């Protein structure tokens, strides 16, 4: 351990420090505002220290590597978590449960995702994944008195533990064959063999179960709608973004460092998963009346889209994944942020009926939600459109016509249910009932401001994507020199 290692790991250390500090402050005095403030400042400082790092590749052997891809993902995760924190304040202020520990758990979950995206070793992967998962178990079941919350919690708990057991068994088999746990050394081993041994292939297959579960892709997607519905809305936003994005970051790092793109049978598995995710996600969303479940199915489909870019397996593909992740994160945060804003003390605003005539009651909220849904559908002038265009470009570039065709087809199917929600928001209603407890305007300022920023970012990236593309290209310059 060198001193400069600490410098490069500073964003993670700040999160650890903030979690400890929060714990101590809660022990002395419970104050929602103070804990909220500490969490926000910690995220900002972590992002600031991240900006000090340049994109050059820095090894912290054997566990971590800090390169452009890692820095990109860390920045994305930290900013997303910052927005989730902003959205959480008004949401939890309305509820009488103890709210301070929520921020502690949120910081820990963010830390887990951060460890995940810079790991290059099975042990670091496992530790990061479990820090993320264990924090998420309690976050999902956080609103203890709600029946659905604990049901979602136990479902996620059992399935996540089961999937990590699969992941571990897969890792053990890979270790058995290759004799190493670090990604680059596995890559070296794979270079030396012409064909994958059966045991190694089994190992990779079992690992795909663990990874696929976290990504929420078909056939490991069954938990997604239930957990999305049962979890508090800000936590749902966190699961949809940070938890899935972190795993995607890891998957791309593993495949590029171990150079596993060469194996046709692995690629075939992912192709089938991608097509199944797109189809199942969109078709199951069609008849959905519950907004949170609808967004859950839509996120299954979106992960399928991202896999199309991932399967391209070249620099353009990784760029497309990065761009789409940014667009998808902004959109998901915005959409679940609206759900969190509209939720009252008894339950989350998750029925389609809650949104009927929303435009005439709260025009600004409805406008943001419309923008988010249009971006999810991939309508021009939004970030989602540019992202989808990028993915199509990478698919066409590598001539994966089947995937491209399915992507286009599914975008059309997806359009239907997004438009359905938008139509409901603009419908005229006679009876207007507001069951919300009216909050102090300053309280909802954080959420309102966050939503406005998200909406502006969405349009800005949609109209002028060049700056984001250049940022991504600059950071990826040091990553994957092989391509």
């Amino acid at each position, binding site marked *: 351990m060198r001193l400069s290692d600490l410098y490069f790991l500073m964003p993670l250390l700040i999160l650890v420090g903030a979690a400890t500090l929060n714990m101590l402050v809660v022990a002395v005095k419970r104050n929602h505002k103070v804990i909220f403030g500490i969490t926000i400042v910690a995220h900002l400082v972590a992002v600031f220290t991240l900006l000090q790092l340049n994109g050059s590749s820095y090894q912290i052997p054997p566990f971590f590597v800090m390169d452009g891809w890692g820095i990109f993902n860390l920045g994305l995760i930290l900013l997303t978590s910052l927005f989730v924190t902003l959205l959480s304040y008004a949401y939890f202020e309305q509820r009488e449960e103890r709210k301070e520990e929520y921020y502690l758990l949120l910081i820990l979950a963010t830390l887990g995702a951060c460890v995940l995206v810079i790991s290059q070793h099975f042990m670091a992967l496992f*530790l990061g994944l479990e820090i993320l998962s264990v924090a998420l*178990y309690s976050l999902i079941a956080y609103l203890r008195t709600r029946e659905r919350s604990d049901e979602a919690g136990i*479902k996620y708990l*059992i399935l996540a533990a089961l999937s990590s*057991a699969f992941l571990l068994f897969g890792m053990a088999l890979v*270790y*058995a064959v290759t*004799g190493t746990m670090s990604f680059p050394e596995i890559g070296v081993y794979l270079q030396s063999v012409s064909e994958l041994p059966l045991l190694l292939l089994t190992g990779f297959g079992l690992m795909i179960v663990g990874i696929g579960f976290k990504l929420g892709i078909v056939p490991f997607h069954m938990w997604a709608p239930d957990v999305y519905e049962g979890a508090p809305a800000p936590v749902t936003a966190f699961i949809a973004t940070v938890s899935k994005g972190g795993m995607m970051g890891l998957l791309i790092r593993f495949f590029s460092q171990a150079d596993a793109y060469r194996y046709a049978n692995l690629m075939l598995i992912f192709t089938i998963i991608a097509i199944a995710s797109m189809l199942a996600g969109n078709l199951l969303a069609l008849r959905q009346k519950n907004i949170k479940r609808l967004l859950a199915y839509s996120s299954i489909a979106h992960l399928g889209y991202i896999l199309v870019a991932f399967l391209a397996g070249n620099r353009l593909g990784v760029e497309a994944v990065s761009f789409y992740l940014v667009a998808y994160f902004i959109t998901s945060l915005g959409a679940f942020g609206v759900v969190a804003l509209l939720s009252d003390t008894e339950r989350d605003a998750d029925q389609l009926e809650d949104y009927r005539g929303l435009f005439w009651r709260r025009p600004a909220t409805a406008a943001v939600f419309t923008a988010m849904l249009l971006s999810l559908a991939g309508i021009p002038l939004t970030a989602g459109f540019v992202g989808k265009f990028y993915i199509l470009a990478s698919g066409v570039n590598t001539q994966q016509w089947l995937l491209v065709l399915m992507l286009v087809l599914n975008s059309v199917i997806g359009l239907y249910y997004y438009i359905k929600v938008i139509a409901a928001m603009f419908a005229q209603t006679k009876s207007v009932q507001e069951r919300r407890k009216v909050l102090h305007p300053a309280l909802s300022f954080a959420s309102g401001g966050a939503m406005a920023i998200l909406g502006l970012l969405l349009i800005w990236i949609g109209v002028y994507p060049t700056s984001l593309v250049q940022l991504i290209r600059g950071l990826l310059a040091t990553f994957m020199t092989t391509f």
Partner: protein
Amino acid sequence: MNEIPEVIRTIPLQYYLFFSSTLFVIGIIGVLTRRNAIIIFMCIELMLNAVNLLLTAFSAYRSDANGQVFVFFIMAVAAAEVCVGLAIIVMIYRNLRSTDINILSNLKW
């Protein structure tokens, strides 16, 4: 008195593989068929222990400490996971007076 890795190496590697795989499959079957949340947890622990055994055996055969270090991590993490898991099960028991997961069926489709 032999060194422990040597003792481990007296049994062929395949046997460890078969034994761990069997334990792992028993764990999967348990998770899929049992309805009590606590027993499901025990089955998941069984699966994790199958992995531990496998890692230890491979580690001894390769004379590489990585596998055994990993086992300690897995044990620690499994303990943490069970803590949170049992807390959630206790919460469910308080709400529903049961740990049978069949009762939990509010969330579907």
